[in-house]
């Protein structure tokens, strides 16, 4: 037997590369807390596409989106021992970091930058980049979620998008749409309750939306 075959990992079995793939995100993060970079790499592989897609949707520029995702994963790595399973999934925590960071960068950019970012985003949309296999699942999830969003009344979808993807407060949205604050809050509430209901109804094809790994 070669020396290599005598070396046994403390993660024997489930710790092999194939075994890691069967692990949940929480288990992978627990391994990462022990210093296992391979486990963390798998978390990156699972969620980098949705993280980058979200960052790009908010920032509108490739460079900013890359910065956001890089900072988010490194933040997740450096704060991995602070993960509280009682407060949600690893994926949700990561995407919250991505969202906060992307909105922060968007808010710090001036109007000119926002417009330029928007223009670049449109150019990117027109590029219709090739999607490798690993992005197909994410693409299917996006299709379902967008279909649910598009099924909302325009005024409800608009307030959710302005708040979530543009980082506007309820008052800023009220000013922009020239509607009372109470109306905006009411639309947000109705939109989110409908979204939850329809995403739950589409649970099977949208299993990845929640990704209870």
């Amino acid at each position, binding site marked *: 037997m070669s020396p290599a075959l005598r070396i046994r990992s403390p993660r024997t079995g489930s710790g092999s590369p194939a075994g890691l793939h069967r692990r949940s995100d929480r288990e992978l993060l627990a391994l990462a807390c022990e*210093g296992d970079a391979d486990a963390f790499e798998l978390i990156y592989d699972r969620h980098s596409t*949705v993280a980058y897609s979200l960052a*790009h949707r908010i920032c509108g520029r*490739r460079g900013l989106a890359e910065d956001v995702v*890089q900072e988010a994963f490194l933040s997740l790595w450096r704060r991995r021992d602070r993960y509280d399973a009682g407060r949600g999934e690893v994926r949700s925590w990561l995407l919250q970091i991505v969202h906060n960071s992307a909105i922060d960068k968007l808010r710090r950019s001036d109007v000119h930058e926002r417009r330029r970012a928007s223009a670049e985003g449109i150019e990117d949309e027109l590029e219709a980049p090739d999607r490798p296999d690993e992005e197909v699942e994410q693409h299917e*999830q996006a299709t379902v979620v*967008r279909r649910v969003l598009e099924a909302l009344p325009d005024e409800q979808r608009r307030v959710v998008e302005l708040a*979530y993807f543009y980082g506007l407060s309820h008052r800023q949205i009220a000013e922009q749409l020239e509607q009372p604050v109470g109306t905006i809050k009411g639309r947000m*509430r109705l939109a*989110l309750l409908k979204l939850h209901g329809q995403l739950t109804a589409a649970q099977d094809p949208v299993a990845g939306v929640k990704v209870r790994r």
Partner: protein
Amino acid sequence: MSTTKNGDDHERFDGDVAAYVLDALEGTEVRQFEEHLEHCDQCQSELAPMRAAVEGLPAGAPVRGAPPDLKDRVMAAVRAEAPRQAPKKQARHWPIARPRLVASATAAAAAVAVAIVLVLGGGNSTRIYEGVVHAPGASASLRQSGSSAELRVSRVPPPPQGRIYEVWLKRGARAPQPAGTLFANGTGTVSVPGNLSGVQAMLVTSEPRPNGSRTPTRAPIIVVRLS
């Protein structure tokens, strides 16, 4: 009018759950709502479904694959900071006696930083640690002699506009600490002040001019392992 357990009127915060989970409340509104939420059954009952709805929104963004080199940068930083006792792929698959190889600047090699240590003769022992540079054709080495150390870099590309290279020292599981060294030239020698005792790795990242950062904001372009 509905009331909560502590007598607050719910109608004052009606609709705020959605604004709260969308991060659309302003300033002190967040704290005021959270205080109300603590005692309001009605708002608490709406919190979970609305939060779940918001958690679904990222999947609605147009799909874009992250650039491959982004993963290289993230994982290079992760592996540089991973505790040494952590199991490594190579340790599981290579014979123990296999000599360690000098890393090149290829993406594959970049995943694991490898150092060559040369101990030179003479009264003052001098150690040279070869680093990994994530840039084609570039090289870096750390020369430690007694209590002083120098970082020698060659053909490292200039930092992005508005940024400067900053040197960090990594000890154990602690976050990298700034070494107080900033430089912009891609070829030359810079001194690395401070005691290198217990330093696991030296990292170089590009940080905002003129004073750098308190914590690294980018993945390292140079990684030199000392242990």
